[in-house]
Structures are given as C-alpha cells and as structure tokens.
C-alpha cells in the first residue's frame, strides 16, 4: 500500500503531464486551422489549372505526340511518394499511413513491380528503412507552413525519374484530411497525369501562345508539383488534427487519473486515521483497566 505522500507525489506528476498535453493539443489546434486555411487558399490555383489541363488535353488525342507525363506505359517499376509527419504523438495516424504504404508495396510486388520510395517526413522514412525498402530520396524537417518551393525538390525528382523512364508510375500516399476526427490514408496516382474529361461542348477554343503543345509542356510539370504541394498541406492538416485529438484524450485520461488517485489517497489517509484512533482508544482502555 503506497503512503499518502507517495500518492500525492504521483498526483502532482500526473497533473503536470496533463498541463503539457493540454498545451500540445491547443498548439496543434491552431496549427491545424492554419494548415486548413492554406489548403483552402491554394484551391483557386488548383481548380484553374485542372480546367486548363482538361481543355489542353482534349486538343491532342494522338498517341504518338502525347507529352511524356501523359503517356501510359507498361509498369515495371513504380515510385511511391510517402508523405508522413516528422514526429509522433499523433495517435494511430502514422502507423495507418505506413500500413497503407506497405500494403501498396506488397500489391506491386505481387504483380512483379518493383518499387522505390521518396519519403517526405521522418516517420515514413524510418518505417521504410526498417523494412529495407529501396529509398530514392528523403526529405525531412518541412516547415509547418510550406510554400510551393519547399516541395519542388521532391517533385522535381519524381518528374525527372518519370520522364527519364526510371519509373513507370508514381503514387502519392498521404493522409487526407476529412474532418477533425477523421484522417484517411489515401493512394493517388501522380504520374502519368490523367486529365479530367471535358464535356464536349465546354471546350473553349483558346488562342494558344506560343502553341498548345508548348503550353501543355509547361503546364504538366507544374500540375504535378502542385499536386505534391497540396498533398503536403493535407498531410499537415491531418497531422495536426490527429495530434490535437490524441493530446486532448491524453489530457482527459490524465484528469480521470487524478480523480482516481485523489480518491485512493483519501482512503489511505482515512485508514491511517482510523488505525491511529483505534490505537489511542485501545491504549486508553489498557491504562484504565
């Protein structure tokens, strides 16, 4: 049976932990809000680009002069861009993403497709390295508020590898932000780019300058870069919301523990008092008797 003093010390330590986890959850909440805003602000650019791409892709249907980033080929080697947080304390988020990525690797292997990984984020790198997965590149310590230029180093590698035929398909694996309590690991095909289909009447018929093909050649890599950037923003929002929820429940648990421990402490204290009283009463009776 621990003494009252021991329990009191325990309570204090749990209370301190609760303070820390509460602060962490509040920080995560504000970072999450910012990440959501950033994802939202990037949306007009993404939407316009998607529309232009659809229009341009509708122009050239010829398989021969299709831009390399649009051309499909037989897949022998695939690349996986794995976007994870750098840090833990995010509940089940990290292992969920990594599990999804591992599943993808195994699926590819079953079809005799070898894979390499571009890891963005320490948790994904550690996981893949532990299982001896072939790593193409690693990026860590991305800021909480990345700009497009922060992610282009990663997207350049991907685009170059694909253009040079080193890989035949590129997948993005990251946690999509559904809402505060739900982040879903998703797999998206980054390359080859599949433009959205246009309804026939909505083709605008732009004047292209210099030519449609040249505009397309500039547009496609930027489109891929933007997709990577967007995935990173989603991943950040997911990370922060997962951390916020995990830290909030940690705080709740700590507070529940304080209640239990206080109850136990009072019991021990009362038992002590009862014992002492018995001793005194017993002693007095002995003296009198």
């Amino acid at each position, binding site marked *: 049976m621990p003494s009252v003093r021991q329990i009191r010390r325990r309570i204090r330590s749990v209370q301190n932990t609760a303070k820390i986890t509460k602060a962490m959850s509040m920080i995560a909440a504000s970072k999450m809000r910012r990440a959501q805003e*950033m994802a939202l*602000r*990037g949306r*007009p*650019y*993404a939407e*316009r*680009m998607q529309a*232009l791409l659809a*229009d*341009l892709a509708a122009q050239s249907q010829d398989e021969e002069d299709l831009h390399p980033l649009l051309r499909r080929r037989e897949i022998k080697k695939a690349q996986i861009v794995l976007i994870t947080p750098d840090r833990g304390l995010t509940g089940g988020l990290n292992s969920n993403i990594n599990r999804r990525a591992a599943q993808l690797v195994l699926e590819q292997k079953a079809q005799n497709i070898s894979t390499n990984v571009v890891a963005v984020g320490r948790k994904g790198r550690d996981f893949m390295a532990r299982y001896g997965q072939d790593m193409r590149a690693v990026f860590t310590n991305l800021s909480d508020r990345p*700009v*497009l230029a922060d992610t282009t180093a990663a997207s350049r590698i991907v685009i170059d590898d694909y253009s040079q035929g080193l890989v035949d398909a590129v997948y993005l694996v990251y946690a999509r932000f559904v809402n505060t309590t739900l982040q879903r690991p998703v797999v998206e095909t980054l390359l080859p780019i599949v433009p959205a289909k246009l309804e026939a009447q909505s083709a*605008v*018929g*732009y*004047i*292209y*300058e*210099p030519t449609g093909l*040249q*505009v397309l050649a*500039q*547009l496609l890599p*930027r489109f891929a*870069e*933007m997709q990577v*950037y967007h995935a990173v923003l989603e991943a950040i929002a997911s990370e922060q919301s997962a951390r916020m929820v995990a830290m909030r429940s940690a705080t709740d648990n700590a507070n529940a523990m304080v209640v239990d421990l206080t109850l136990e402490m009072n019991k021990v204290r009362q038992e002590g008092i009862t014992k002492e009283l018995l001793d005194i009463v017993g002693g007095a009776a002995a003296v009198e008797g």
Partner: protein
Amino acid sequence: MATMRLEIVTAERLVYSEEVSSVVAPGFDGELGILPHHAPLLTLLKPGELRIRKDGQETLMAVTGGFMEVFENKVVVLADAAERDSEIDLARAEEALKRAKERIVARGADLNLEHALSSMRRAEARLKVARRRRGTTAGPTRPG
C-alpha cells in the same frame, strides 16, 4: 468604362482580384496588352512585370513566369510567384541577382544552367518593378 475581372493566383494564395480596365503582361513572344472583351487566350508568361490599369491608376506587379488565361471577360494569371511592387525587398532581390550571376560565371560542376538562368531572370524582373516604383514616387526608401 468597360472593365474586366483580373485575378492573380499562386499555388499559395489569391494575390489580387479586382475589376480593371487593362493589363499588360510579359507574354512568351513579347509583351501583350489585354483589354476588356478579349478573345479566349491562353499564353505562357515570362518572368517580368505586369502592368495593371484600374481607375486611371497603374499598379505594377512582378511575376516570375506562369500562365495567363483570358476567358469570358476574365483574366486569370496563374503565376509561379507574384508580388506587388510595394512588397518587394530591394536589397534581397539585388542579393539574389548577384548570387545567380556569380553562379553562372563560376560554372561549378553541379551547375544547372537552366535553373540558374531562370533565377537570374526572376531577380531581374523583381528589381525592375521595384526600381521603377521608387523612381516614380521618389519617396524615402522603406526601412528594413
């Protein structure tokens, strides 16, 4: 007077969204001016300055390449980066230009000439816009 909608967006944010009366943009084959009710157009942009006329006032912006789309009396500039003249840090732009030039002159083994040249052009575009503003206003230079 006829106006059209001008939106300048980058991957990070919506930089500008106003009703304007004309835009002059650094197109791929040279400068091109857009007036209201222009035909649908999609062009590549070079790094350079964007001159916006609104209510008789001219605003300058530095863009570092991208696309411009004109459709249904609306101009959308999808810029890699865009800054208003007042946002440009002159000293930093000068520094960037110097660095880019040095890199090109030094021709190190790992030099990516294309990247170096494009960062030089970007810096030049910024400087041009920033200098022009200072030239016309001739006010005291901003601190910092």
